[in-house]
């Protein structure tokens, strides 16, 4: 149990910090390439740094410089402007960057940098997807797929931060919607493949979530996803720990009680399963009384496994009469 708590607890902060790590390592890689005069390589690395964290001003300046030395002055001017918009008012290199920007703008003349066609099209597709399409579909499609397509076009504008925020919200909304059972269901009606997609959807949201509240939600829900995958993948030993963790971490998801009962049953711990079920049934009386008859059926099944035939038959009679 402890092992899984540690694993899950470390997993999401690691995911959350992955973006910061990507950002830092990309900046480092970009600077190394820049210092070697490999400006195209530096440009690629700075683009990745911006994509990892669009709110950091430094890579915009460095990217502008990489464009400058490749004689792409209109692009350089645009990215100098991005830096100047995001940089703190007392940044020590403001004057130098302004001078560089002036030179780049002079050399650009009447040329104005515009989004390349592929970036513009990919951006428009993502906007449309975010407005009306699904956030994530099997195989990494939906808005997430469009977002990844946009990144592949080397899109690296400051509004990427807003896009990421919107997309992560949409991903989590979609994830949460699928996490809510219908009135006739005890648990979310998702099979193993659907949970795998949910897992990918949650990982996608974790990858781009910048909001600590969202990051916390991703952390807690990861335990649920892992429990579901363990249960459906019949990883019995892990399933019990994960189901308990999922239930304790997600008190808002009442149905995780069913997961714990099933996990204990699958693990052959029928007495504990019955004890958990009875405790869970007490909460159902106030939370969701319509599910109590289901608890009776499951109780009858557990009593069968505990060889309490009379009690089991009695429980069945309660339902079948």
């Amino acid at each position, binding site marked *: 149990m402890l092992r899984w708590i540690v694993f899950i607890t470390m997993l999401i902060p690691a995911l959350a910090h992955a973006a910061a790590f990507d950002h830092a390592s990309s900046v480092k890689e970009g*600077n190394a390439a*820049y210092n070697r*005069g490999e400006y195209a390589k530096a440009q690629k690395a700075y683009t990745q740094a911006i994509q990892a964290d669009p709110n950091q001003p430094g890579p915009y300046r*460095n990217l502008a*410089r990489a464009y*400058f*030395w490749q*004689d*792409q002055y209109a692009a350089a001017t645009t990215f100098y402007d991005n830096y100047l918009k995001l940089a703190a008012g007392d940044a020590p290199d403001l004057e*130098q960057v302004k*001078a*560089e920007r002036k*030179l780049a703008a*002079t*050399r*650009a*003349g009447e*040329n104005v940098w515009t989004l*390349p*066609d*592929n970036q513009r*099209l*990919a951006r*428009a*597709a993502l906007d449309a997807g975010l407005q009306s399409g699904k956030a994530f579909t*099997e*195989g990494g*499609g939906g808005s997430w*797929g469009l977002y990844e397509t946009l990144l592949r*076009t080397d899109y690296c504008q400051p509004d990427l931060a807003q896009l990421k925020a919107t997309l992560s919200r949409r991903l989590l909304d979609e994830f949460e919607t699928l996490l809510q*059972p219908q009135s*006739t269901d*005890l*648990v*979310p*009606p*998702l099979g193993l493949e659907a949970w795998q997609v949910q897992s990918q959807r949650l990982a996608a949201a974790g990858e781009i979530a910048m909001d600590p509240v969202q990051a916390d939600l991703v952390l807690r829900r990861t335990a649920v996803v892992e429990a*579901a995958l363990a249960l*459906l993948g019949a990883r019995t030993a892990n399933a019990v720990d994960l189901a308990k963790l999922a239930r304790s971490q997600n008190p808002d998801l009442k149905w995780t009680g*069913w*997961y714990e*009962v*099933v996990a204990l*049953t699958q693990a052959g711990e029928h007495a504990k399963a019955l004890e958990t079920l009875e405790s869970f049934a007490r909460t159902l009386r106030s939370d969701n009384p319509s599910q109590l*008859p*289901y608890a*009776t*059926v*499951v109780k*009858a*099944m557990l009593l*069968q*496994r505990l060889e309490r*035939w009379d009690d*089991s*038959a009695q429980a*069945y*009679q309660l*339902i*079948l009469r």
Partner: protein
Amino acid sequence: MLRLFHIVLLILLVPLGAAAQDNEAAPQSDREVVLWNVDGDNQRTIEVFRTSVGEALAGEAGRHILTDAALKTYVRENTGPLPGCLLGVESCPSPQALGFDALQLSFAVHVTLKTSAGQVSAKYALIDAQGAVTRESSIDAPNARDAAFNVVRDIFDATGAARFETTPAGAKIVIDGRESGTTPSLSRLPVGRHEFTLTLSGFAPFTGQVEVKKGLTDKIQHTFEELPGTLVVTDAPAGALVLVNGEQKGRVGEPIALAPGTYAIEVRADGYDTLRDAATIGSGEELRRSLPLAKSQGLFSGISSEAITVNNYVFRMGFEHGIQTATYQDARTGADVPYELRSFTDGNGGFPAVGALERTVHTNGFRLDFAYQFQNIGIVLLSMSYLLGQPDELVATTTPLGTDEPGKLVGIQRLQMRPFQLSYREFYNNFVPFAEAGMGMDFTWLDIESPRFDPQRLSQSEGFVGLGIGLQYFITPKFFAMARYSLQTYFDTGLGNDHLLLIGLGAGFPNVFGFDAEPPEKL
């Protein structure tokens, strides 16, 4: 009587127990398992009714659970897996249906007995595996035994069973417009023809009819066929071709029907780089894939004029061939007593008394230019040509004694300086045609040999105006190849016109002298 009931029940349960064993081995047996719930206002009547039902069902193939003890035995023998709906892998039926499923019961019969004035009234309801009442009726009989036989007859003569199986399993069954569980399933239906529909997500629904006969079990088996999926490629340029596994299947925006599976997708459009991707299409799925293409970097689209024009400082160097038709009449030595070229001569050594003969002289050499370029206008700050030739032409030279002596022009050197020229250029992608005009100074040295005097070097300098046209092809924003034709006309008519042809290379640099605040070269 009680002993008789036990004996009858034992007789009934022995074969029924064997059926239960069959059920363990094959949980989806065609044999029905029926739970009887009998209650009423008289315990004795209930017991007689149960015993009589057992007698009445003697020829029935199914297993009938008539008492609490029989239910306990059955519960002991049949421990099923936890329902999939607890994990969400299937939708949850009613709790009753879940109970039916857990015990693998086919249906239940609920009977309520009322005894009054020598009459037994048996009100019964048939509950199917979904927990729904499918048949209700009431039978009056003079005693419990007759009531039991009449109820059994009423149920089993008027109904039959139909078993539904599909591949894959889990299809929703709708019989006569009413949901009736998922496959595999055994449903008891009234005798007669029934219409059913089997539906499974991602597959074509199947509709059919089943003729249910009294007491018989009919089996319906269906294997679903996968529906073709649809691929729609979006965001590529209009008219782009979509190839699937190497074969052209359609164009961007068009739905392409494909059998479920994984495919290699290729999108092609003129002027754009081909994009390859993989796509997995499920049964009945419409997959929309955004595949924007990047413009190709072709010969005519690789370098923008923006990238070229920032390189203000331009150096050009090339091989130049000069063709000049001239008399060189004023060329002379610089000594106090000079030699002076009188004229080219004909084959006999003759030349006109007034004026001079002219010859066409070819020279070869190199030319260097240094210019400052604005967007279209440029200023050539310095241009220099150095050309050499070996004309081997007969000439007459006036000596310091005033005589015209025969000789031969064996060498020519020319240095041309153009301190200021204006140029204009236009951009056609990588091609940049240009024209230039300006003035310059020509210095020419002629080497004369003669049997009458020592070899002499004559020189001549003259101003000219020049006009040139050319074409540059930029390989990169900095470097280019060029060809140029220049026409130079001298102020002295004796030098005629000079035609200069050049092929060469050039390079542009943005900030040669470091006047501007550039970004640091190291971070």
